[in-house]
């Protein structure tokens, strides 16, 4: 079983259907693909958000995503995995991140996708800045993100 792994960090938008097709084309060993996409919201509580700007740590961001991809592949029988994370200015309604996991059966694909998103949110070096009517500010980390990542740690 070989797993096709694609990891990209880019300013440009991505096309989910195209990414799924690239992952599954010519393969007959994939029975399930789970797709998660994170999308920029236009509001946070009562505040309107005009846009997000994402900063990242080049080099480490790729390394960290690769580490988590390798962990996911060692824990679940995946046949393919794609992570695309955008950086730069992103408007409400636009894509921010894509995680695709492919496997022979759905359970591994569902679990690996959730694991990867939980780990990326807590550990991948990306930072969001929000543009609100009152000015711009860095988004505070959610305490829940660390907890969500920690629940995958085997005791």
């Amino acid at each position, binding site marked *: 079983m070989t797993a096709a792994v694609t990891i990209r960090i880019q300013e440009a938008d991505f096309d989910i259907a195209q990414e799924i097709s690239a992952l599954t084309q010519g393969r007959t060993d994939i029975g399930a693909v789970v797709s998660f996409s994170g999308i920029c919201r236009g509001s946070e509580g009562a505040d309107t958000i005009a846009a997000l700007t994402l*900063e990242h740590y080049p080099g*480490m961001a790729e390394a*960290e995503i690769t580490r988590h991809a390798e962990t996911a592949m060692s824990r679940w029988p995946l046949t393919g995995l794609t992570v695309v994370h955008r950086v730069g200015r992103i408007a409400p309604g636009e894509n921010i*991140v894509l995680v695709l996991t492919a496997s022979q059966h759905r359970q591994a694909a569902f679990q690996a996708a959730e694991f990867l998103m939980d780990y990326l949110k807590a550990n991948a*070096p*990306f930072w969001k800045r929000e543009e609100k009517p009152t000015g711009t500010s860095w988004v*505070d*980390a959610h305490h829940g993100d660390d907890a969500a990542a920690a629940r995958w740690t085997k005791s």
Partner: protein
Amino acid sequence: MKVKYFAWVRERVGKSEETVEPPASVRTVDDLIRWLAGRGETYAHAFETPRVIRAAIDHAHVKSDTMIAGAGEIAFFPPMTGG
């Protein structure tokens, strides 16, 4: 060694990277944070709450008690908010 700053740590310090030569008494990540904080007002502001600052050595997360000897690049940044 090369030091990099990201997000609001970068904004407060006023630069994204620099080369520093701390004295030999600066042995851990936490020592380096305290040494940097003493370099001036902008640094003091960036590192005023050391417990919220995250660090990475050569592209891997490290804890504050990690020794910095042999590090090529050390980065400081706030908790991550990607995804």
